[in-house]
């Protein structure tokens, strides 16, 4: 990376700005998720809480490298990427706490949120299912004569075993669509280690099979994530076809907040892959002189204040009222079926 930095005056400053911006988004995601965990423990959240602790660098790099007008379908552990793409602390809390004012209006919750009209697709739980959907979104954009659009979606190591992953990536490759698939290879799918999930030496090998470009990235390094995903998104935007990125990292929380992750090999936490990307990024920023330790601490404190205040506000917002619901799943109201 240092060669790139030296090649152009001001590039180092730009890179510093990018990294600090991404770091602050990661921090916002981290602080918000810590709040969500606390709310869950306090019984304030119905249903599950699924966090992305340890995956913020990879996730934020996707959201931050996209532009308005692009398509993004994040998955379970993408709080940071969602926020980089424009999602907010307010709407996240509203969705988790089931406020009727949230984008999902209490109809869906937690990570299953989005605003499709803004290119921010709302995942379904079924793993892999978003890949063909983003691919189809890109096909339509092409049919509409749009170019320079990218569609990105994230998935886990486990999700790569689905038929939808295979079919979606293959179809995107056949159509040479600007699809960017980011695999957060966090070594486990719930309790299942990679050794029980796939037999290729590296998930990156799959890129060859599909005829798409593969990129490997150290998911604990923010600078690496920003650079590699930036390269991939640029390549897709320029007409290079689908890009498969595999980021190696470790999920530093349970599968969901109900899970103690006792099945995770403890030695992994001491290996490079088990490092906390936020700690590494913070240290790097301080070392580069882009911000001081006090500034970092201040940012965290400001975020904690904002998150606490927002949570307090959302908890006073109205719940959805079943009496106000029209209980209709069709937009064409006259075609609604009626049951006695």
């Amino acid at each position, binding site marked *: 990376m240092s060669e790139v930095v030296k090649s152009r005056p001001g590039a180092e400053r730009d890179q510093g700005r990018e990294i600090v911006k991404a770091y602050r988004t990661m921090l916002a995601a981290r602080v918000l998720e810590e709040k969500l965990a606390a709310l869950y423990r306090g019984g304030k959240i119905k*249903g599950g809480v699924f966090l992305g602790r340890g995956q913020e660098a990879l996730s934020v790099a996707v959201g931050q490298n996209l532009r308005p007008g692009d398509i993004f379908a994040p998955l379970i552990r993408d709080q940071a990427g969602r926020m980089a793409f424009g999602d907010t602390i307010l709407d996240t809390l509203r969705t988790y706490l089931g406020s009727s004012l949230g984008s999902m209006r*209490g*109809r869906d919750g937690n990570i299953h949120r989005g605003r499709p009209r803004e290119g921010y697709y709302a995942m379904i*739980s*079924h793993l892999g299912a978003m890949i063909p959907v983003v691919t189809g979104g890109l096909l339509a954009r092409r049919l509409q004569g749009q170019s320079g659009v990218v569609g990105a979606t994230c998935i886990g190591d486990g999700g790569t*075993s689905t038929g939808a992953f295979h079919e979606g990536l293959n179809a995107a490759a056949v159509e040479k669509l600007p699809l960017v698939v980011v695999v957060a290879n966090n070594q486990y799918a*719930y309790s299942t280690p990679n050794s*029980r999930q796939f037999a290729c030496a590296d998930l990156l090998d799959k890129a060859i099979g599909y005829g798409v470009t593969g990129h490997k990235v150290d998911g604990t390094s923010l600078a690496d994530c920003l650079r590699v995903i930036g390269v991939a998104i640029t390549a897709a935007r320029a007409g290079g076809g689908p890009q498969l990125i595999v980021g190696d990292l470790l999920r530093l929380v349970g599968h969901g907040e109900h899970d103690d992750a006792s099945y995770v090999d403890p030695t992994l936490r001491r290996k490079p892959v088990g490092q906390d990307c936020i700690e590494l990024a913070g240290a790097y920023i301080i070392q580069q002189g882009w911000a001081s330790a006090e500034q970092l601490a201040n940012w965290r404190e400001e975020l904690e204040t904002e998150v606490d205040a927002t949570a307090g506000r959302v908890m006073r917002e109205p719940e959805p009222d079943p009496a106000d619901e029209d209980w209709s*799943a069709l937009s064409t109201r006259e075609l609604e*079926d009626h049951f006695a």
Partner: protein
Amino acid sequence: MSITYLEAIREAQAKALADDPRVFIYGQDVGTFGGAFKATKNLAKEFPGRVIDSPISEDAIVGMAIGAAIEGARPIVEMQFADFSTVGFNQIVNQAATLYYRTGVSCPIVVRLPSGGTAGSGPFHSQSMEAIYAHYPGLVVLTPATVEDAYSMLLEAIAIEDPVIFCEHKFLYYHLKAESLPAEAQPIGKARIARPGRDLTIVTYGAMVHESLAAAEEIAADGFEIEVVDLRSIKPLDTDTVLASVARTGRLLCVGEAWPWGGVCAEVIARVTAEGFGLLDAPPMRLNAKDTPVPYHPALWGTHRPTASAVAASARQLLEI
């Protein structure tokens, strides 16, 4: 000693693994971890090599079970949630369900579907899929509502030569308890009178049996005796027991947690009106979930699914006709 509905499912699988060397279990996280709900807790340790973690590949999971069954094995497949069985749907309805009819070779697999709604679970972790599977010829579809049935029907399902869709209800997993496991049981295909009565029949299954029993209890205070029929198996469906009950009461309310269109309630009402029209003193009635995806927020979910008070309201309405 007391045993939960979930533990009964574990115990049935333990017994099947112990008694029959052909049995094995395949599914996500079912091995050392013991499954997302712990329905296979410790089984991998007790039966080495026979409780196998799968990749996240439902199509392959079911397809492999079918292949194994052809070769003489007795696979039990665990879907992590019933909702994800849609990904294995093709193998279930086109491969497993047609095999015997096409080739004369039966397909003894059991697909366990952790089914139904719980608060806060939302559109993709709450579905009741029994009707869609029952629609296909070649499948047996079971919906146990008690700890005893969870145990005995799962054992029977494993013994059956045909593919069985075992719809175990997540809402009942932890709080439903019994003193002990049953030594013998009613056979699959026979419904059960869960509460006798003479004024109105509620035909239901799964978690709705308990909502209906609570409603019957509530209405008993008004002096009405509600009979509750627990179907246990929705395919085959025990029309005789249903008709005999309606013959006693003259009134039929069907309660199902699934969506209304083409569902179990619709099927029961079709049979009763076709075969027992003269037994009815009032039009039959059904109460189902609302015709939308299952909402996440508990306040919406509590209205979306039938609850004891909704069942009681419908029953009162029907009693007044």
